[in-house]
């Protein structure tokens, strides 16, 4: 399976602080990948390494099999939407499309114009006077119309109102359905990602906590509740992600490859949001045994 992004022990340090450390990922192509984590976790750093804006301090990263931003051909394969959708405030919508047409050999002018019409954007309106949602949509148009193989979106909906957010995601999903494009998008809101993503990476405190296809992750995690017990007494092969106790009851979120046979436990399924929250709450000092589910 080809990789959209592949990293090996990737790390980035600014002066004394590591923004990203020990990051080993194999993100397969053909998915919509959600990169989730609290602010400052390293999401933007990872995406900036993927677009070539930053160079790694340690380790390696390959995007679509090549070094990021290795040349015009590589740049053409990756579409990027930076945080807050930077556009030229004084340039009208139509000139932004011309920018795309002049700077990208693979530019699909029909697609761009259809999108702009459907979005009801006035071609003569300057980008600085567009609403937040419209700016995000225009920036997405620019990224999508060059027909990339991979779309990288850094917190594309973070500052949008709920309606604009929904419309943006609708648009994005339509583009994914129409073109065979992989997407990596980051967000600190999990609910944004639940519907759209079928592969998830949780990044907390500059480290990857868990990564894998959503279906596999949901199938491998269970919520166990039962009489109070020491988590260490669980059988091997069962990793405890989070635990909480009252004086009589223990509730555990576990990750296991096999079925839970102990009848003392009441087993229930975990939603994606609860799953990601549990990983995000893990203390940083805990050793992480990362298994990437392929």
């Amino acid at each position, binding site marked *: 399976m080809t990789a959209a992004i592949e990293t090996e022990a990737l790390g980035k340090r600014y002066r004394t602080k590591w923004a990203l450390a020990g990051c080993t990922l194999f993100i397969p192509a053909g998915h919509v990948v959600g990169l989730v984590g609290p602010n400052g976790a390293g999401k933007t750093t990872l995406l900036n390494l993927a677009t070539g*804006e930053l160079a790694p301090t340690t380790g390696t990263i390959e995007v679509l099999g090549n070094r990021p*931003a290795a040349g*015009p051909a590589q740049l053409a394969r990756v579409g990027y939407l*930076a945080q807050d959708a*930077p*556009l030229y405030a004084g*340039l009208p919508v139509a000139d932004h499309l011309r*920018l795309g047409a002049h*700077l990208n050999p693979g530019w699909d002018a029909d697609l761009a114009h259809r999108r702009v019409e459907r979005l009801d954007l006035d071609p003569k309106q300057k980008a600085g006077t567009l609403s937040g949602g419209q700016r995000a949509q225009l920036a997405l148009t*620019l990224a999508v119309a060059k027909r990339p193989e991979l779309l990288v979106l850094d917190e594309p909906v973070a500052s949008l109102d709920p309606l604009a957010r929904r419309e943006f995601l609708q648009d994005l999903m339509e583009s994914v359905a129409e073109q065979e494009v992989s997407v990596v998008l980051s967000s600190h809101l999990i609910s944004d990602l639940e519907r759209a993503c079928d592969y998830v990476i949780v990044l907390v405190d500059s480290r990857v906590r868990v990564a894998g296809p959503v279906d596999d992750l949901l199938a491998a995690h269970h919520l166990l509740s039962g009489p109070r017990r020491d988590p260490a007494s669980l059988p091997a092969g069962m990793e405890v992600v989070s635990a909480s106790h009252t004086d009589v009851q223990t509730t555990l979120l576990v990750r296991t490859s096999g079925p839970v046979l102990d009848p003392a436990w009441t087993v229930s399924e975990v939603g994606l949001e609860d799953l990601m929250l549990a990983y995000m709450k893990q203390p940083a000092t805990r050793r992480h045994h990362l298994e990437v589910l392929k």
Partner: protein
Amino acid sequence: MMWLTWRQFRAQAITAAAALAAFAIVLVLTESRMASMYDSSGLLTCHGGACSGLATTFLVQLSSGQGVSFIPFGANVYVIVYFLSVLVILVAPAITGIFWGAPLIARELETGTFRLTWNQSITRTRWLTVKLALIGLAAMAVTEAFSLLQAWWAAPIGKAVGLGGGASIFSEGRFGWFVFPTHGITPLGYAAFAFALGVTAGLIIRRPIPAMAATLAIFAAFQAIVPLWIRPNLFPTSQTTATIAASGANVSLGANPALTLTASIVPGQPGAWIISSEGVNAAGQRVSTIPAACQSAISDGLGSHRGTTVGPDPVALNNCVARHGIRVAEGYQPASHYWPLQLAETGFYLALALALAWYCFWRLNRRRS
């Protein structure tokens, strides 16, 4: 990329075109009267020694208000236009460097639009190449256009000065401190350097306004230092010694009794650029004080005359100093070095511009945060 460069540069190009047009209009409006004055001055048909007298007359006439003045209060329009146009040429490279160069990269970094443009299907190298080439050449062309327009307008003045016209406000020679940098090809070098300096400052400082300030400061420093210490040393200076009279020097008093001799002619080298002049005795040693005997020439001339204080009698002072065997040692560049100096200084600034540009390419491609 050329379309994008033009589109982003469009407003600045229009401003420059408007400024050039306004400049041209002012020059055209004032040129014809000056040209007819020149034609009727007799300088077209003069020969030999008679020319310098006629030339001086013409220049004095031009600068003293006997020409037509459009401006009230008796201000002389030719003087104003001349010096304003020189000012424009001196300032043009700084303006393009500050307003075209400094924001080039800095604005993209500050607003984040570099994340849009440098992720399209072109490399940063190509982006910068097109931007530097097109806008840099535009800066050079605009500055040189101002210079050429002014040279056309001031042609009569230049010819008169060349024919020996002196004693007027226009009479700085080609090597004059405001003439050398505003004529010939030096404006090209300054424009290229100021632009490259602006771009580099913007890349390092990453915000337009501070970059503009830094560009102005550094460019101004260069424009002050180069004429003082680099331009005179681009070629070895020639030396000669002349009598005080022949060198047209005047003895002027520094803190008495310090001796300062300011020569204005190099005998046998018309149009030379005098770089240094100092008093030397018969043995060639430097003399920096007025001989004691001449002190009296100073005090003789001092005193009150009908209630006002007059300075020392300059002729007596000159004669006294000369009688003591003091001559003037002049360091100069001959007139024939004008174009070599122009080329050397322009080459110097162009080399700096290229070095700065190379640095920008290197730094732009070095991946950082």
